[in-house]
């Protein structure tokens, strides 16, 4: 989503400083799964605000529709029927979408300058006009969120309604949620709000209730209140998400190391020539060959 009026704090494939003087509020969206009724109003609001119209899919016999996130589905209600304890069925419904990591794997992996940015308020946004369609963001993401469009070969995901937030509005999904399961505000404020919710849930018997704000990715700007925070896998969430060490290597140490190695080999060749001179055919052999030629003639 381009045409923003937010300060950029980090920019893909950019090695120099980005404008960083102004300090703005860290924002966050808090999704309280214990309050969610699975109505999908957020999914509809997202499509409506962002002018997204997916293809009509098929009914697979459950409520989850479409089956997965895609280029026109930036948020998706995922339905899980689980038994956290034997004979105790729970229907867990999680609004899936970009987590807006403080340390975004997509941004680290992106090779196109400015195609992925992180604003100073914490929102991670894709600027599709700079996107080259390589899909490295998918490779970098610990949450399996970005999707390449078959239509235009650009990557898409939730923008946290950066356009709305820029003008002081809450994201469309927050605005529409009928039960107040999704709230939006300063990150500190959202953490405080989560704490009251967690305390309430614990009182009601969910002793393992807690906040999902994984530190492995520097914390996220979309957080969940989970009834079973000790088992995020029940909700299809990774337990300890981090940027994969392979991606860290590929986009970290490998880059300067590669440049140094190539430069070293290039310079060594140059200075070898400068110090040793060309390896030319010796006069002796040249004469010997000429001599043979004369003999044969």
């Amino acid at each position: 989503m381009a045409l923003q009026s937010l300060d950029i704090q980090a920019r893909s494939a950019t090695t120099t400083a980005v404008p960083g003087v102004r300090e703005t509020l860290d924002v966050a969206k808090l999704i309280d799964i214990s309050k969610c009724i699975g109505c999908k109003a957020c999914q509809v609001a997202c499509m409506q605000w962002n002018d997204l119209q997916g293809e009509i899919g098929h009914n697979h016999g459950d409520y989850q529709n479409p089956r997965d996130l895609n280029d026109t589905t930036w948020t998706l209600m995922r339905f899980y029927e689980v038994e956290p304890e034997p004979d105790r069925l729970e229907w867990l419904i999680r609004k899936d979408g970009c987590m807006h990591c403080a340390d975004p794997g997509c941004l680290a992996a992106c090779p196109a300058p400015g195609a992925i940015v992180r604003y100073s308020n914490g929102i991670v946004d894709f600027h599709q006009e700079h996107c080259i369609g390589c899909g490295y963001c998918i490779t970098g993401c610990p949450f399996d969120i970005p999707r390449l469009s078959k239509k235009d070969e650009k990557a898409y995901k939730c923008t946290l309604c950066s356009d709305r937030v820029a003008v002081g509005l809450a994201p469309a999904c927050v605005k529409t949620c009928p039960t107040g399961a999704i709230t939006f505000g300063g990150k500190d404020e959202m953490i405080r709000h989560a704490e009251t919710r967690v305390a309430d849930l614990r009182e009601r018997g969910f002793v393992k209730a807690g906040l999902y704000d994984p530190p492995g990715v520097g914390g996220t700007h979309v957080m969940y209140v989970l009834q079973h925070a000790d088992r995020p896998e029940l909700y299809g969430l990774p337990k300890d998400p981090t940027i994969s060490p392979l991606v860290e290597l590929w986009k970290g140490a490998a880059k300067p190391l590669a440049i140094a190695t190539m430069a070293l080999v290039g310079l060594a060749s140059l200075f070898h020539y400068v110090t040793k001179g060309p390896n030319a055919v010796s006069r002796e052999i040249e004469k010997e060959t000429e001599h043979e030629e004369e003999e044969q003639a």
Partner: protein
Amino acid sequence: MRRDPRDLVRYTAGQRAVHWIVGISFILLGMSGLALFHPAFYPFSLLFGGGAWTRILHPIIGVVMALAFVVMVIRFTRYNLMRRVDWQWIGRIGEMVNGSDETMPAQGKYNGGQKLLFWLLLICMLLLIPSGVVLWRAYFDFPVEWVRWAAVVHSATAVVMICLIFVHVYAAIWVTGTIRAMWYGTVTRAWAKQHHRTWYEEVTKP
């Protein structure tokens, strides 16, 4: 074309052509690959019509190079089998680097270093081709963990290959009278005698 009727034929036109196809595609792949690897090289993408075109073209050029490389392997493997003398030559590489190859063991069509390069390049290609396919999102959708491994393998191998090719190109420039074999296929007798004496004796045997 022979500058001198006594010049020796080192490469046929077909062999030269396939080497040029591999060479040109390698340069294009190196530049487009580096553009996608490090922001310092991103400007190379302008040579391909921008970032998206670089992403589209790189794997297609890769297929061209892979096919041409297979042809080269078929045509050149038999000249590159490592023999005892080749390992001896490699053991004394210091003398060669010092510029005094006249003291080195006599060499056939290729010396030990050239043969070793051939095998190292083949290993590089065997790593680059499958990892490149895994990274090709336009047509393939592999598990993300595979793609992460492929990204590391593909970029690390590519850097090794670029360094090997630097050495390959430099050696051809350094050894005067070599590049012409790539252009029109012939070398002088004196060149052959100095650098590949065993080969010289084989091809000039009456």
